[in-house]
């Protein structure tokens, strides 16, 4: 009887340790890039990102991805041009991976090392600051990734033969919820 009781306690406890300690799910997001041209300034916005985080032994792995074609700058012609220069048909997803200590996911500023796969290239962004705010059980992360076209070997798109600026900062606003 005591053995059965012990097993009843130990087995679920063991399976809890084997699985992720905790998980994060991306609830909503606004990811936008900003591009500048002497005649224009435009932002391409996507709300289609999906993300998941898994924490093991106090370390959390996050994976966030969005289809390249989901970015909308308000002009379908420009978006198709961006899709072409970013090789978006061949590499349709922008994928971000990061790792954070679970203890740092609290209101304040968190610095994250990001690995971004985009346009068939992988670029690393070190110590990018993100503001973390708590909204009940959810966590809101906001920050800017200082991306450039050369980071991903993208030829700058042109308008009237004038290329856009190399800097395309990516603004991120994500709401995550945690759960087992």
């Amino acid at each position, binding site marked *: 009887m005591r053995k059965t009781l012990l097993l009843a306690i130990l087995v679920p406890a063991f399976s809890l340790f084997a699985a992720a300690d905790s998980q994060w799910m991306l609830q909503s997001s606004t990811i936008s890039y900003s591009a500048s041209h002497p005649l224009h300034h435009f932002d391409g916005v996507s709300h289609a990102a999906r*993300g998941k985080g*898994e924490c093991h032994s106090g370390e959390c792995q996050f994976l966030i991805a969005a289809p390249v074609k989901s970015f909308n700058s*308000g002009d379908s012609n420009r978006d198709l041009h961006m899709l072409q220069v970013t090789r978006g*048909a061949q590499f349709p997803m922008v994928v971000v991976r990061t790792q954070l200590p679970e203890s740092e996911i609290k209101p304040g500023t968190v610095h994250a090392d990001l690995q971004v796969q985009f346009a068939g290239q992988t670029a690393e962004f070190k110590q990018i600051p993100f503001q973390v705010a708590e909204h009940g059980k959810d966590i809101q992360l906001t920050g800017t990734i200082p991306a450039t076209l050369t980071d991903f070997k993208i030829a700058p798109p042109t308008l009237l033969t004038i290329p856009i600026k190399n800097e395309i900062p990516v603004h991120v606003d994500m709401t995550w919820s945690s759960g087992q």
Partner: protein
Amino acid sequence: MHSQRVKFVSTIAVLAIFVALPHASRAQAAGATLSGTVTGPSGQVVANAKISIKNAATGQSTEVESDTAGVYRASNLAPGNYEVSVAADSFSTATQSVTLAAGASHTLNVALSSGLSLGSLGFPQSETQGSAQEQARLNRRTHMLKVHQTLGLITAAPMLATVISGTFAGGRATSSSNRDLHVGLGSLTAGMYFTTAYFAIAAPKIKGTKTRGPIRLHKALAWIHGPGMILTPILGAMAYSQKSKGEKVHGIASAHGPVGVVTAAAYGLALLSVSIKF
């Protein structure tokens, strides 16, 4: 009889030892050892990971498991090239290649990455898989539209010159040389215009794209300057003919000037619609 039997068995045993010994010592020398530690993304050891060590030449696999310290060890492996794959629950399977020399001990530590994958995010495969064919289509579209854009800009110059020369070509006091210059410029404009239009019309269309933004105005204006570019030269030819006969331009031909101006204005606006943010 018994002693003879013992002698025979002893001789066989000694012979067997002599025959087997060199093989055994050679096998010991030839057998390579592969060992290492399996860790997770944050450096934690991974116990019970399944390690498959596959000989590339023979296809033969040796299976071992990591212990509670994440350590695995496989010995007596023949020298050669191996493909080592490491799988564990909640992690992505890692595969590495290793070459083992005869009798050598090789250490191969394997760091497993998180089990998070695009599939785990719920994206359909059709959305995550790239298409080189579709990319080639996009490249061709962009190339053709770039030519369209450049030719369109260049065409604006003879078009403007045609409009300006038109103001000297229609009056009573104008010379035939003024009219000829206007006709020449108009013909050049028409030729360039239709070449420009070709690159936009023939550019590959991308399925599932909903037209939005300033490009809608750009396309709508084509329904004005397009017919205008057909009508203007026809009306111009009629007006030229009337003028050549010494007649005053009359009838429908008198619409040549206004139609030409509206066409040029629509064309200019189409250029601006994609150049300047309104």
